[in-house]
């Protein structure tokens, strides 16, 4: 599958992967693909940042390599590691055979045969279907040293293994970096990336997403759900519901055979939407009733 050559083609490509992207996101994805630059996506949890990488890999027919970041992530888990057990056995065997030359033995055990490739190294390797999509997920969870290491990888697409030398990608992978912004990503890294803030979708787009992702939900209920979630996001909640939560909620309500929202239904299922007790306590009851009434009035005005 070739890379899209216009923004319109990018929109189509994402649509084929069942991803409803707005024009701004499609533009930045198109540029990242065209210019061969890493794409840094920031946004609240549950707005579909990770999904973009998955959809891109799927739609382009490329392999998806995912590196989930966590505190203390190091090169042994992210880039490469030596297979120590195999190396030990190799040394023992050599000693049993009476090999005397230790320098030669050293060269032998530190060869590619004993190298375990972790996601970043895997992403630099040539593949038949074209360069893979490398997803570096939740970069904000790692620490600054790892970020600094990524700088080399993301600017030159090469990795240095002291015992072997520098491994450089023939064709750079498509790199998607996501961050939930639990801390600020360093400027040096940002400069190497194209940046996009993934926002909550507007009502129209959210409805389109819901139709794709929860197709069993009745039409009227979908519209109620989207209106309610959009209204929730305008409240000052600790954690506004993301698209993932909207889909969960739609599925929960559909499973309950609901056809329209009412107060009891909302109160019973609010846990699918809000993940903090304080938020639930604030919305459940009168606030939910108020929002429902607002939606009803707005819907009547629209008809």
């Amino acid at each position, binding site marked *: 599958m070739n890379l899209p050559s*216009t*923004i319109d083609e990018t929109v189509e490509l994402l649509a084929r992967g069942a991803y409803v992207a707005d*024009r*701004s996101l499609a*533009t*930045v994805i*198109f*540029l*990242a693909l*065209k*210019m061969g*630059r890493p794409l840094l996506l*920031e946004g609240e949890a549950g707005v579909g940042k990770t999904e973009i990488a998955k959809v891109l890999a799927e739609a382009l027919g490329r392999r998806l390599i995912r590196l989930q970041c966590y*505190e*203390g992530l*190091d090169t042994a888990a992210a880039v490469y590691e*030596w297979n*120590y057990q195999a*190396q*030990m056995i190799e*040394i023992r065997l050599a*000693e049993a055979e009476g090999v005397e030359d*230790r320098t030669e*033995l*050293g060269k032998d*055990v530190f060869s590619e045969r004993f190298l375990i490739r972790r996601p970043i190294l895997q992403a630099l390797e040539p593949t038949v279907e074209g360069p893979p999509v490398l997803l570096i997920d939740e970069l*904000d*969870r790692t*620490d600054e*040293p790892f970020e600094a290491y990524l700088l080399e990888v993301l600017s030159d697409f090469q990795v240095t293994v002291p015992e072997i030398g520098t491994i450089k990608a023939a064709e750079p992978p498509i790199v998607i970096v996501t961050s*939930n*912004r*639990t*801390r*600020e990503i360093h*400027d040096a890294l*940002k*400069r190497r990336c*194209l*940046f*996009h*803030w993934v926002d909550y979708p507007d009502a129209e787009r959210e409805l389109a997403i819901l139709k794709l992702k929860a197709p069993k939900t009745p039409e009227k209920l979908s519209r109620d759900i989207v209106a309610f979630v959009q209204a929730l996001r305008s409240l*000052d*909640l*600790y954690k506004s519901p993301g698209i993932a939560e909207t889909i969960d909620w739609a599925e929960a309500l559909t499973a309950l055979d609901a056809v329209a929202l009412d107060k009891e239904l909302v109160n019973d299922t609010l846990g699918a939407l809000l993940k903090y007790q*304080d938020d639930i306590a604030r919305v459940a009851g009168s606030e939910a009733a108020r929002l429902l009434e607002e939606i009803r009035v707005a819907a009547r005005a629209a008809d």
Partner: protein
Amino acid sequence: MGRLAENIVHFARVLRRAGLPVGPRQVLDAVEAVEAAGIGARADFYWTLHATLVKRRDQHHIFDQAFHVFWRDPKLLDRMMALMLPELKTPPGAPREEQSRRLAEALFGDAKPREAAEPELEIDRSETFSAEELLQTKDFEQMSVAELAEAKAAIARLRLTHDEARIRRTRPAARGPMIDMRATLRASLRAGGVIPLKRRTFRRRRPPLVVLCDISGSMSAYSRVFLHFLHALTNDRDRVHVFLFGTRLTNVTRELRHRDVDEALARVAARVEDWDGGTRIGETLRRFNIDWARRVLGQGATVLLVTDGLDRDAGEGLGPEIARLHRRARRLIWLNPLLRYERFEPKSLGIRALLPHVDEFRPVHNIASLTALIEALSQAPARMPERKAA
């Protein structure tokens, strides 16, 4: 392309003057991106430049306004498009929005020096309960050479309790709990025969420190000392975030990072608007919990809360917010400078709401100098309730 590139360079210059750090590399990127995308619809042109020139969410606002002002002249855009492509859709008229002051200054060159303010703050300013709050700026006496020397010496003596945490990175250590396979293998290659085990242990690091400092009227006597302390602290260690609050919450981390203490304090003074007014602890903590907690309390931060606990809202809404802050923070230290008596009785509602939720309570009887303040923080804590299991 020449004309377009020129215009993009000019646009980048406008952004830079409006406070967006747009470097030459980004300008080159922008030109390359526009070449790649071609000039079609105005929205596409907008997002193409946006993708390359904006690197943080809070820069979006400035970019948006600058774009609409700079590329407002449709003839300009038309002429440029004519250079690019033979036929084009006409761009829709740009919405005329109110320009921010920074942008106006950048475009039209105001003689006044521009503020180093962030757009987030401007949103803060629009919240108005000025009828109740006392808005005023503050002048700080310059720091003397002796005071500077004292500050440096004092901050070096600062020892917070539990100020180092084990992190998940390791270093070589003779008696560490983990085996360093790589080093072991290397050693065994050299030696042969018996494998000499090499070990590693966890590194330790000072966790991020978040300071929430009360600057209301009842605290005004101490604000100079506190700001000197906060400046020294910010420049002494990494990952420090400083927020000041009275009736509103202001993030002054960036201002305090300025090396020169007088310059830093002047910037803080200009930035904060609610000096020496009332205190709304509950409300400001709520703003912190919603807007900042997720961003600055990651990675096991210690929170240092500096307040006398005297709350204009009489502790209203304070309980749940301090409880939430306590759950988020690895450690919550409360430094209370009001206490003038040895026997402290929590009578004020604010104080009573705060007390059950702090890990460490540090009453200070007299803060005359930075040294006294740092001693108060470095002593063995007066009372250290066991941290409840979460």
